[in-house]
């Protein structure tokens, strides 16, 4: 057998990649791009089919859905960041949104433009977030998920009813000039505020969250802290400061989401609490604690809610079921999506399945409860003594 020559053994030095080759997507991104393209194609084909068969154009509902999604996403990023760092579901997040909206209204009442109002409210709410951590939530560290939830409900009650006491329950409206829809084709129009401004701001916030988490030291520290608190501490990250920063980011994102929500409807003290469950649904669908999941989940939740409207309108026709107030049931759709995700993929559609736990699905559990599931192999024999 011939001894392999020297040149055969040595590993050839990697060729320096050209500029184009470095930009070439990895296999994973390529797969994701293909999937996204397929999704869009299916959606367009489905829409065309609906127009052809029934004459219903769902593109309008899609645009509304995108608008709802962008509000949900901006709020959900904040909620999921807090979940990642502090490990509890913040039930006060919706009321923090309302607080942001009302602070902007208050500033606006002094004759400053609403944009400045939103900016002031952004800063004020960041401070409120830090205060909440100092006064309440830092005292509940390490006591499991339930005590912080209870405390956050208390914070929510205080904020919501504080607004009711001070600003009264009267619905209010931002003094913005009424603008007409810009018609594109007959039956399809775009509203400058809810259909252009809201998704635009949403996109801006998504991009800034991406830049913050990906490219800044603070963002890296946040991700590290969310991943493993002890390890982050051991590496010398000041986790206390990271927690404060996360509260600031979370609450200021919530304030902007509140302003956007107030622009699309009226300002009411309970407006934030009413969308809180939508935001939770988005966070859970996407995988709790993951910002990318929150974005994906927000899209799924907003679109599924708004695009169920034509279905409910159809169900409301007297020759189908004749459901009264049919479109009011659209708020049930996000929860159905959430429950399905919780049953099949509790770690969310974007999250990764935990490798260390057995995949105990509820069907398996059900089977076990009825006594015909997989049984443990052998009863452990008692050893003497003890």
């Amino acid at each position, binding site marked *: 057998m011939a001894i392999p020559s020297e040149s055969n053994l040595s590993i050839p030095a990697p060729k320096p990649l050209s500029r184009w080759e470095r930009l070439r997507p990895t296999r994973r991104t390529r797969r994701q791009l293909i999937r996204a393209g397929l999704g869009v194609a299916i959606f367009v084909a489905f829409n065309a089919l609906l127009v052809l068969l029934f004459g219903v154009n769902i593109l309008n509902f899609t645009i509304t859905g995108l608008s709802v999604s962008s509000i949900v996403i901006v709020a959900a990023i904040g909620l999921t960041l807090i979940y990642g760092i502090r490990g509890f579901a913040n039930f006060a997040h919706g009321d923090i949104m309302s607080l942001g909206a009302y602070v902007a209204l208050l500033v606006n009442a002094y004759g400053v433009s609403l944009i400045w109002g939103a900016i002031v409210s952004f800063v004020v709410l960041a401070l409120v977030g830090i205060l909440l951590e100092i006064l309440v939530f830092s005292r509940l560290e390490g*006591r499991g998920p339930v005590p912080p939830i209870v405390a956050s409900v208390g914070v929510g*009650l205080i904020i919501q*009813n504080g607004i009711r006491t001070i600003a009264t329950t009267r619905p209010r409206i931002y003094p913005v000039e009424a603008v007409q829809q810009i018609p594109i084709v007959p039956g399809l129009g775009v509203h400058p505020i809810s259909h252009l401004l809201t998704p635009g701001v949403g996109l801006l916030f998504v991009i800034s969250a991406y830049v913050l988490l990906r490219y800044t030291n603070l963002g890296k520290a946040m991700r590290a802290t969310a991943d493993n608190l002890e390890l982050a501490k051991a590496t010398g990250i000041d986790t206390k400061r990271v927690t404060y920063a996360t509260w600031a980011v979370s609450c200021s994102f919530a304030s902007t989401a509140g302003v956007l929500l107030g622009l699309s409807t009226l300002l009411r003290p309970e407006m934030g609490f009413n969308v809180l469950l939508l935001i939770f649904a988005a966070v859970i669908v996407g995988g709790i604690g993951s910002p990318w999941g929150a974005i994906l989940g927000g899209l799924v939740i907003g679109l599924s809610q708004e695009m169920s409207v034509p279905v409910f309108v159809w169900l409301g026709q007297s020759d189908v079921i004749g459901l009264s107030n049919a479109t009011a049931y659209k708020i*049930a759709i996000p929860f159905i999506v*959430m429950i399905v995700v919780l049953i099949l993929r509790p770690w969310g559609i974007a999250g990764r399945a935990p490798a260390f736990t057995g995949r105990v699905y509820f069907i398996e559990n*059900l089977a*076990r409860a009825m006594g015909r599931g997989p049984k443990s192999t052998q009863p452990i024999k008692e050893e003497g003594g003890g």
Partner: protein
Amino acid sequence: MAVDTGILINVGFYVSFSIIFAILALGFNLQWGFTGLFNAGIAGFFLIGAYTAAIAITPYAPPSTGYPGHLGGYQLPLAIGALLAMLVSGLTAAVVALPTVRLRADYLAIATIAFAEVVRTVAINLEPITAGTIGIVGIPHLLEFSGPNAAFLNMATVVGVGALILLGLFFGLHYIVESPWGRVLRAIREDEEATMALGKNTFLYKIQVFAIGGALMGLAGWLFAVTLLYIEPSGSFAPAITFSVWVMVIVGGAGNLRGAMVGAFVVYGLEWLSVQLKDLAPDFLKEAIPYLRLVVVGFLLIILIILRPEGILREKKRVLR
């Protein structure tokens, strides 16, 4: 001889509502205090019980101008109404528990509060069955009285029946939480994996607890319906009810039957007093009193959970011998 019964009726109102809240708190205490299942959908099960009972026992109400009418006209006996309310609420709780009960506490809270809100939306909008926002009116009294003292006698029956139910529930629940079955519940709360390792089917236990707790909340709904004689979905079954019950259990002491009941009487007492003292308040505060009360509830939640999470009455320490 007509006695001035106004004050007595007012106090009876306080006692009967405290009893309703105490039943809710007992149900929640069984789920959270003993088993560690954090249910945030109390208002939903309460609503299901109230509507089931109301539909079962109320005479037929035809749709007329301004009233959409509702499902009903069965005029079943009141006791059957109570059983139906417990059954429907309990079964719903079991079905809700199937997919959600294996989740961690925070997911469970989100899923159950979402369930409660969906139920409330359905009750507001499903007019042919629930009469929409107007609600179901004309629910019969427990016993029919006539004469000048009818209002007082009606209140007295409600309080008496409520007190009997509460007493029965207290002894019944005491028996089951002290039984081996109840011991498993506390074991699940302390360490579920260890309990599983001992061969207990924790999933089945949790479903049972959720169903029993839901049935108790349904019973509270029945008592609510026959006390108030009308039900409407938007205010009486709002998430604030759930939060109030949390406060009661936290004030009284989780994992303690007496604690839940004491908490209900104390916290509802504050609420009742705030209504009674409304006339003493300065004018600018009068409108805001219901909201200020909820602000106080919020502060109570935060302060208690930080400083005294075990409540007024601690859970009895159990030492292994």
